[in-house]
């Protein structure tokens, strides 16, 4: 009797220790496996605890089922507001590789900012706002059992006569809402909601982007599948004013991706390379003036689709990281003249001044 009580207590103690570590075995997180929402939340806490100088978390809304939508703010502290990069993953529940990528991205920048001068400069000049799982309700639902794995939408109940759940959050933004490529059938995976911004998740993003409009330089939203980099807009008759530049930046990112593992990513607007649609977060970001707004559709091209094998998580994230960094580097360098350029400019100005003054003497 005593023996079994002791063994139960030992089990409790071990489990408690395991639980305190947030289910993270031996305090090292496996970035090559898919993680539950609980594990991701615990990981976010761990990132904040282990990197207090550069990581803080912000709750910026609630999901329909009342969960706190949380982002990690990453960068050196500053007394004045800094320019910023936004990244969200997991707006569509079944696209599990996307949250995996956000976690990989955070790990990479936290692991390199001290040693990589480029990343260090980014931490100085920019803040990263990263939401690893935006549609938390949907993501949790997709983990429930084998029949829910392919859930896409939010988990708000249908309104009126509708007996189906969920709105497609990426059709629910105030960006040509309802114009093209959506469905008014509430059971459809493209149902754009009873009204624009009906979903608290899309409202949370909208409010945050609005409040940080003047800081945000770049909006990146991560999805799967298709191996695409999408530029605004989803409507075939509307062009972004900087379309040419966006295509250039996108194509450079696709090239950076291919250099890693040979995978080919296509670049274009949704009406060109995917299908026309409206109400997307990327379109909303561009419409309110965030100049560099892209959707990433990660691996693969349809062989496994949403159910990407775990042994592809690492390579998929590695290539997408290079693609994202290609864009972020471009955006950073466009807004922050590097020290080298300042030195060169000073040198040339000095030489020119000397030449002019010497010319005047003669």
């Amino acid at each position: 009797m005593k023996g079994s009580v002791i063994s139960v207590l030992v089990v409790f103690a071990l489990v408690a220790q395991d639980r305190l570590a947030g289910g993270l075995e031996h305090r090292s997180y496996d970035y090559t496996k898919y993680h539950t929402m609980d594990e991701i939340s615990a990981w976010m806490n761990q990132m904040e605890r282990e990197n207090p100088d550069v990581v803080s978390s912000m709750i910026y809304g609630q999901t329909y089922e009342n969960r706190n939508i949380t982002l990690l703010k990453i960068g050196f502290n500053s007394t004045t507001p800094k320019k910023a990069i936004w990244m969200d993953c997991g707006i569509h529940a079944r696209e599990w590789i996307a949250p995996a990528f956000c976690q990989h991205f955070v790990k990479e920048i936290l692991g390199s900012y001290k040693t990589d001068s480029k990343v260090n400069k980014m931490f100085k000049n920019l803040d990263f706002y990263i939401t690893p799982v935006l549609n938390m309700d949907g993501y949790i639902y997709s983990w429930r059992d084998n029949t829910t794995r392919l859930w896409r939408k939010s988990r708000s109940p249908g309104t009126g006569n509708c007996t189906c759940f969920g709105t497609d959050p990426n059709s629910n933004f105030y960006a040509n809402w309802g114009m093209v490529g959506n469905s008014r059938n509430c059971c459809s995976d493209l149902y754009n909601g009873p009204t624009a911004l009906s979903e608290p998740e899309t409202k949370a993003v909208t409010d945050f982007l609005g409040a940080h409009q003047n800081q945000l330089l770049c909006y990146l939203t991560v999805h799967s599948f298709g191996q695409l980099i999408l530029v605004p807009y989803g409507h075939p008759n509307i062009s972004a004013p900087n379309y040419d530049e966006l295509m250039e930046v996108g194509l450079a990112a696709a090239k950076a991706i291919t250099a890693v593992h040979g995978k080919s990513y296509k670049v274009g607007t949704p009406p060109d390379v995917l299908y026309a649609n409206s109400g997307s977060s990327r379109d909303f970001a561009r419409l309110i003036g965030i100049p560099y707004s892209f959707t990433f559709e990660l691996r693969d091209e349809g062989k496994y689709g949403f159910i990407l094998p775990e042994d592809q998580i690492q390579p998929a994230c590695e290539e997408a990281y290079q693609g994202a960094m290609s864009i972020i580097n471009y955006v950073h360098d466009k807004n922050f003249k590097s020290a080298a350029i300042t030195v060169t400019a000073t040198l040339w100005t000095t030489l020119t001044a000397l030449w002019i003054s010497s010319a005047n003497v003669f």
Partner: protein
Amino acid sequence: MLSVIHTHLESVSSRLCYATVLRFINSSSSGPRSSPERIMKAFCSLWLLLSLVELSPAPPASQEPPLVCRGATDPAPPQPETQEDMASTGDLEPTHFPARRAAQVALHHLNTLHGSPFRVFGLQQVHKASAEDVAAGGRKYSLDFSVTDWASGSAGPALRCSAEVMFPRTQQHSGPEVQLRCEALQQVSSTAEEHAFYQKYVTPDSAVSAQHLPDSYGNMSEDMQPFWRLARVAASFIMLRESSENTEFNMVQVASITQQESSEKQLMLDYVVLLHDLPSQEIVQWKLLVSWSPDRGVRVLQTEWQPRCPHATKPPN
């Protein structure tokens, strides 16, 4: 039974415990990965047992999946939309979706002819494409593209193909017509692997049965790969038949496979496959009766579209 356990687990245990046990149930082939997880598993199993012994009430009826679907089921298989004809005639951009969709259709056709448990072709790249309107309102695509065999992995060579894909535009949907030529296609040679696989499973006492290939994590044992490929080839018959310029199908998952008694020396398999259509983002479920042998190739004998529920429906109040 399993769903009752799941519901009960969800109500009595924490999410972490639930997720651990769920993963254990789902990945019975791969055991727990480390000792904390094993301890967690033991603890959760103990917790579950104790909670069952406590006379806990039966899960409320609203949490049981309804026996008959109530309310709306998933929409019917995507129909071609009456879409404003935005497709251009003449040369098409190879990276844009119209060329890609037509190439995928050509690939479905290729797989119906030459696919096997050890050969499934996937699109590598479209090189050139053009389209023209043809008589009776149809549209014909001319394509130059490369394909690879998924079964040979990254080591495999790319085959160059050309095809004409004609999408008829009739009142009622009828499938596209494909003419196809690929270089170096070994038409008749079935491989040693195919014969070994055939011999192993055509025996009278073979009764292969499995669910969810791959599993939720994208994992699948080596043994089941040929069955997955066979499903993918069989699915090509459906995807070909259902395709239009407004669809883009892939097979997401094999929901279930049940081997039937071999007939006329053919492997007979009952499949339920889940297809995904990109433009509508819908998941479509089909039941297929499939026969295969190295000599006769893949044949789809019966097909049945299955409505998907209950996850889309609200529980009854």
